């Protein structure tokens, strides 16, 4: 099922790059500014997942491409989250 969205233009790609660079800077600053706590882990993982999502949606075009590709990609990601949760609570 192809969507009708128009793929992004060059300026859009550069905007995503700026967002990724800024988020990386925030990650590094937060890792040193916030002492070890659950909030720190949640914040840093949230920033990493946000960056990964931006790359997948806009650079890999999942936002504009067939939803089947998103499903193919997300199924093993769910398994991965399952691995980590199983280990965390084992």
């Amino acid at each position, binding site marked *: 099922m192809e969507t009708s969205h128009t793929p992004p233009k060059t300026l859009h790609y550069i905007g995503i790059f700026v967002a990724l660079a800024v988020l990386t800077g925030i990650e590094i600053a937060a890792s040193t500014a916030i002492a070890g706590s659950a909030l720190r882990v949640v914040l840093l993982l949230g920033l990493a997942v946000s960056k990964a999502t931006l790359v*997948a949606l806009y650079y890999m075009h999942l936002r504009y491409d067939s939803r089947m590709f998103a499903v193919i990609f997300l199924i*093993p990601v769910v398994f991965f989250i399952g691995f980590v949760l199983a280990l965390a609570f084992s």
Partner: protein
Amino acid sequence: MDNRKIGVWLFIASEVIFFAGLISAYLLYVQGGRVEKPVHAMSVPLVGLNTFILIVSSLMMVLAFASVQRGSQRGLRLFLFLTMVFGLLFLGGQAYEFATLFREGITPTTSLFGTAFFTLTGFHGAHVAVGVLWILAVLIKSLSGRYSPANPIPIEVVGLYWHFVDIVWIMLFTIIYLL
């Protein structure tokens, strides 16, 4: 829907599971507190710069794809070349980091941390190296003008692989160096 795209997405799905196993093992041993992370020997600024370099390479890759979509052969070759250059810079940074850790006595065989760390980052580096070779092959083929708005899929497919390798590093940077 192009079969080459379905194929590369299925391959990426298998790679997610591959890295999921390695990351889970790292989390179990290192973040689980079974071994101590040698924080003194790990340079976040250096690896942060390397992360930035890989993000720049992803921008170059997507600009290569945008170039082929609008029929710019010159743009395609330039941005493929720059993607490769930034990929090689990343590998150079990783080699420098590995050499620094070796000098500190941290190797794949000296500790559980070393085994988990070098297995995870080493396999990622190998994926970057394979990506650089793939881009080089595509760049050489592009010299004959075979890629065009009517035939952009080979560029999109190598781009999907490259961006996936970038996503893996984005997660590794946080899990290994920042947490």
